[in-house]
């Protein structure tokens, strides 16, 4: 019968496909075991991973530093990268909520699923500052676990480096010692650099920021956040809100800081009405940088403020 032939052919094809698939399972993890293939959502995390991983890790950053990591697309290329990753490194606490779960789901890679050792959620390793949205109206970005923008705090980044070195060691026990040592060295440099930069800034600086993304500067620089250009995180500045900011801050001195990808109009309004200097600063180092890139970023933040 002709279809019994067809069936045999189909059975053979299926058997061939199954063998190829089985071989793929067996061969791929073995090849990957050599180095650690890490995908980091932001370049601050990428910088730490690169520093700690050295030659034993390959790091790819998904969010370019000139983009708002709240708003990305779950691109096919992200899924392809996550499919091959041994480790996914995310800031967490809702920052990447708009796109990362879709990319993670589309990657069909169990190693980086939530709950697996290959999934590293930085927000779980440090204590977060309270987010304004935890008290405010249910609008804009609700950072219900706390403010996730702690990449602006080198002290928390130092804590993170230690936890990350530990985890990378768990995934590649052969290199565990090297990872932990490099993590300790990185943490040391971050703390020293933070202290040095803080000493050079004039004390008691007042700053207005765009989003609650630079709040963490308060943790290591002698600054106080006195206002936000956004009425609520994720809600664009309104004319009424900006006028009330000017009314509140009239006659005082300070600096306006905002991210390079944020619209400058609100900051310019404050500059005109209060005479405060404004600075557009990056929030993350260049996509391919290591720790040096992050230390340089810290310098950019500190030097946007009046120096002693």
């Amino acid at each position, binding site marked *: 019968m002709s*279809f019994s032939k*067809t*069936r045999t052919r*189909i059975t053979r094809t*299926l058997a061939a496909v199954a063998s190829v*698939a089985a071989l*793929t*399972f067996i061969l*791929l993890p073995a090849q990957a075991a050599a180095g650690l293939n890490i995908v980091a959502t932001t370049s601050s995390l990428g910088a730490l991973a690169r520093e700690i991983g050295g030659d034993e890790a390959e790091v790819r950053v998904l969010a*370019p530093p*000139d*983009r*708002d990591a709240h*708003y990305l*697309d*779950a*691109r*096919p*290329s992200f*899924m*392809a*990268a996550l*499919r*091959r990753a041994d480790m996914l490194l995310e800031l967490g606490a809702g920052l990447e*909520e*708009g*796109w*990362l*779960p*879709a*990319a993670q*789901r*589309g*990657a*069909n*890679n*169990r190693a980086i*699923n*939530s*709950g*697996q*050792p290959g*999934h590293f*959620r930085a927000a*779980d390793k440090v204590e977060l500052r309270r987010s304004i949205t935890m008290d405010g109206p249910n*609008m*804009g*970005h609700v950072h219900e*676990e706390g403010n996730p923008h702690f990449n602006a705090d080198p002290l928390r980044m130092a804590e993170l480096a230690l936890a990350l070195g530990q985890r990378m060691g768990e995934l590649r026990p052969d290199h565990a010692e090297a990872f932990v040592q490099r993590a300790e060295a990185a943490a040391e440099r971050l703390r020293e650099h933070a202290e040095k930069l803080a000493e050079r800034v004039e004390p008691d600086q007042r700053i207005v920021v765009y989003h609650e993304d630079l709040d963490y500067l308060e943790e290591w620089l002698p600054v106080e956040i006195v206002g936000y250009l956004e009425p609520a995180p*994720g*809600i*664009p500045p309104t004319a009424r809100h900006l006028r009330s900011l000017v009314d509140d801050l009239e006659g005082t001195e300070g600096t306006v800081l905002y991210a390079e*990808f*944020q*619209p400058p109009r609100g900051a310019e309004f404050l500059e005109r009405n209060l005479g405060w200097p404004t600075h557009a600063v990056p929030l993350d180092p260049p*996509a391919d940088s290591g720790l040096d890139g992050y230390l340089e970023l810290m310098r950019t933040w500190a030097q946007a403020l009046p120096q002693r």
Partner: protein
Amino acid sequence: MPHNTHLLRPALGGLTALALAVPTAATAQQWETRAGDRNWGLDISLILEGVYYNEMSRGISDPAGFDDGHDHGHDHGNGHDHGFDDGFNLGHSELVFEANLGDLFDGVLMIGFDEDHVEVEEAYLTTRALPGGFQVKAGKFLSDIGYINSRHVHDWDFVDRPLVNEYLFGDHGLQETGVQATWLAPTETYTQLGVELLQGETSGIANYEGSQSARNGQERILSDRSGPRLITAFAKFGPDLGPDHAAQFGISGGYARSFQKTDEHSTRFEDWDGSAWFAGLDAVYKYSSGRAYGHGDWRLQGEYFYREIDVDRRDVNFEADGNGPEGFVRNEQSFKNKQDGLYVQGVYGFAPRWEAGLRAEALGLTNDVGRGDGESFGTSYRQTAQVTFRPVEPVFLRAQLSQNDFVDEHGDRDRGLEFMLQLNVALGAHGAHRF
């Protein structure tokens, strides 16, 4: 085509076995939830939509060759094809539940409702723990063929579904109960392959009637045919184009081993029984300018689908008429319907939080309907423009103007103009957006 049954059964059996066996094997390995991972539990979101509809001028309601098998549940008999009444409409709202079982399964339940209907649109489990880039989805879901088919209303760039999706598949696109298996290749270019075994109930491609009562000793040609009756396959490719550009290209097709239809005419039933297949191409390109609130961003997408229905026809009188007594059989013939359609659309963020889009559609570039002596109908067109404002992330307000330029069965054309205003609000834990 009885041999298809023999092929589908073992394939389905194998897939089910794979779906059941592999997660079990995976549990045997250690899996743990790390303290602080808060991604567990149930997420609920509610999407509410309101539509103001105004038919400014009435054209031809159904494009020639496509009125068959196309039935609008909420059409109040006045023939317009969106299911909207002139004036205010509740639109299409959704209640979405998402939860997971460790990292083994994700479960999704999506309930769609409007003023008159509540429907389970999707209810499925997806595996998260299969090795080698495999994933299995089981339940009721929107098929992943093409691009827009698997997307829900609030994800569309226009108020309504593209004609090709609506008329070649059905009012809800290709939405079926069954099993899907996908494999993601470990390559730099995103490469996903997938197959779906589906029950086969979608009106445009796998219409199912089941056995019909005999008339005066004359057996009807329609009989029960067990599922799955529809199999689809798709491949998607997404090259890595750097931080500013992203693209995805897809190819898909499907075969329904059963396409059945029955029409009740004044004195006779017209029965169709046969099979159908389709194939299509889709492409999406997105440009991200890096400016705030979508200013300067582009989204371009297009899809083409071709469908062939191959059926035997047999008419049976349920009442005596001039042609013969009750049970009289006539019009026995075999014929093919060959039809296709496409759309291209582009959306541009012309200001922060504002975007405008254009869509051009053609339905029936090939429009050969074999019934009777066979006819070739003309092509119907539609052009649409929209402007969307997103004051805050979960809310959008969209104004849309469509001009349809449909052809009727006699080759006459008429233009109709429609205006729509849509308000869409997402409340609660709104899931991550797919590309």
